[in-house]
């Protein structure tokens, strides 16, 4: 039965359901229980933003607080995954990948290939991504492209509670390592979510809005900005098709190409930096595979090529917004379909 819950609740529910279904699912991370060994109450935090709150009471020691030691526990999650567990390790902020990246990209990502297909690493690494939290340069990044560059890991970034639940359940059941990116500014966003378990397959983009004039491709938080832009465009009789990629590795090229072949125009919105981003990746793919369908140059709307600033005034400028997306869409409809170079090289 569906009811409105937030993305934070949806993630909690997915973990709860999978831990109930499968005793090999364990969840670990810094403060995911909270207060372990401290004099106050057990399960004090349930994650730094409370995402795992209440799970300890149900599942006990299968939720494990860890020392602040990402290399060790992310590595342990990966090692345990090769030994039959299905660990979900929370990296808290994706920015912390820097201290444990070897375990992700040289170990987890490589095992299946390097060991000739004889190893499976069903680990999920959950991490908060994205700006808008006034958390500055080391707690706000959208580092998805760093992971999509690595063969062997899957990369997921849901834009809403329904997708978050179904994609997280799929991530846990998937036999490959999955980087599950949770935009912290979407945690509170509610939508209809079935109470039952369900899995959304990877590589299936969601078309949130049909439209024949321009295709807007995005993922995560900026999907909502893209929808706002589409509504604004609709008031001007421009119908935008909005594609939410949902998973970035694998990525649903077919849906993108199908849409661009109908609309002939493409705007890619990415909260990551512009260089070697999801946006540039999609733009390049469409350029190579649907050039004939394009009626205008592909527009990329991304964060600027700067670290995430702290001051709210600056951070608000940093995140791609609806007017800039709508403007990019209008550029594709202008006679030349070109725009001033918007990216610092």
């Amino acid at each position: 039965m569906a009811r409105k819950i937030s993305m934070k609740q949806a993630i909690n529910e997915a973990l709860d359901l999978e831990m109930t279904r499968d005793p090999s699912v364990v969840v670990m991370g810094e403060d995911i229980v909270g207060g372990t060994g401290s004099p106050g109450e057990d399960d004090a935090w349930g994650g730094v933003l409370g995402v795992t709150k209440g799970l300890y009471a149900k599942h006990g020691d299968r939720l494990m607080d860890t020392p602040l030691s990402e290399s060790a526990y992310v590595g342990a999650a990966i090692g345990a995954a090769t030994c039959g567990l299905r660990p979900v390790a929370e990296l808290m902020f994706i920015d912390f990948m820097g201290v444990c990246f070897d375990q992700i990209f040289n170990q987890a990502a490589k095992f299946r290939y390097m060991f000739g297909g004889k190893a499976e690493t069903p680990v999920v690494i959950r991490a908060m991504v994205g700006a808008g939290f006034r958390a500055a340069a080391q707690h706000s990044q959208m580092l998805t492209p760093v992971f999509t560059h690595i063969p062997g890991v899957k990369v997921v970034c849901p834009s809403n509670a329904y997708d978050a639940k179904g994609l997280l359940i799929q991530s846990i059941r998937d036999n490959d390592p999955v980087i599950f990116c949770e935009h912290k500014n979407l945690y509170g966003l509610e939508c209809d979510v079935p109470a039952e378990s369900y899995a959304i397959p990877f590589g299936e983009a969601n078309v949130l809005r049909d439209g024949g004039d321009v295709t807007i491709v995005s993922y995560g938080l900026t999907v909502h900005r893209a929808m706002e832009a589409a509504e604004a465009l609709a008031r001007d009789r421009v119908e935008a098709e909005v594609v939410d990629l949902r998973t970035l590795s694998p990525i649903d090229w077919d849906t993108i190409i199908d849409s661009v072949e109908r609309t002939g125009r493409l705007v890619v919105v990415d909260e990551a930096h512009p260089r070697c981003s999801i946006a540039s990746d999609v733009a390049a793919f469409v350029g190579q595979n649907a050039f004939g369908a394009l009626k205008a140059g592909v527009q990329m709307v991304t964060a600027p090529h700067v670290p995430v600033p702290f001051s709210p005034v600056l951070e608000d400028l940093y995140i791609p917004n609806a007017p800039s997306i709508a403007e990019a869409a209008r550029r594709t409809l202008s006679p030349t379909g070109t725009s001033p170079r918007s990216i610092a090289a």
Partner: protein
Amino acid sequence: MTDDLASQGPFPLSRDDLLKAYRIMRTIREFEERLHIDFAKGDIPGFVHLYAGEEASAAGIMMHLKDSDRIASTHRGHGHCIAKGVDVHEMMAEIYGRSTGACRGKGGSMHIADLSKGMMGANGILGAGAPLACGAALAAKVRGDGGVGISFVGDGASNQGTFLESLNLAAVWNLPAIFVVENNGYAESTSRNWAVAVDSYIDRASGFGLPGVTVDGTDFFAVYEAAGEIIRRAREGGGPALLECNMVRFFGHFEGDAQTYRAKGEVEAIRASRDCIRMFAERVIEAGVVSRAELEAIDKEATELIEDAVRSAKAAPLPGPADLLTDVYVSY
């Protein structure tokens, strides 16, 4: 295999197990000596890091393990593989880059793995195995199956953050994890005496609340006994521990290493005085438990086994172009 250290015979292992241990060590030695020759001939692509001289550590530890116990190895992993039961033919084929290799020719010397044997992989990243072994230990602990996870690191990799973080994690979670520092005195070419600030791995372990034991890693019985106690303790829920095996490396860091950083005559001296296989043989023969002829028969079989492995590896098919793109993700 026997866990019964209290047996009242002259050795803590049965006669059969003594022969098995000897066969493991001899097979490793033959494997490595043969690679040394064939690499020099240019038959083998890439890097190989040889384990010769260190056999007592692999054998003394692995004799206590079951297939369900997991080890995370190092770049110098051939000995660990053989001692853990990985098929020698598959290993050789892998080193030759053949499709019949343990990793279908996609891993090579530095990445031989066989999870069915509990071998989580040799590892090209120094220190990376320590967290993985913690994971194996965690899996065993969650399942409550009495298994252990063992991380091998060299003296060099003991300086990696992953290793030190893993000591802490294993202690905090009280994991059945065992950290074996195979101290051959050299981190590649750099002396451990210079590169390790606190010159004792036991002190490092103590700093994280783990007991540590140092043994002569060239003495099979020393390794066997200490490892047995440490593994038993871990299986019984006693938590992690560290074992330092002081040992010697007969060859260079990798093949092709001229070893000009070593003292003159050093290798000859250790081959003469600290050959773990010869010391083992002398002791068991002297005790009258096995005969020299029995050991010589094993020597011959090991030589033949390796010869056959090389012959079949060279004859084995190479991977095809289609293999380039497979085994990246699970196929649905």
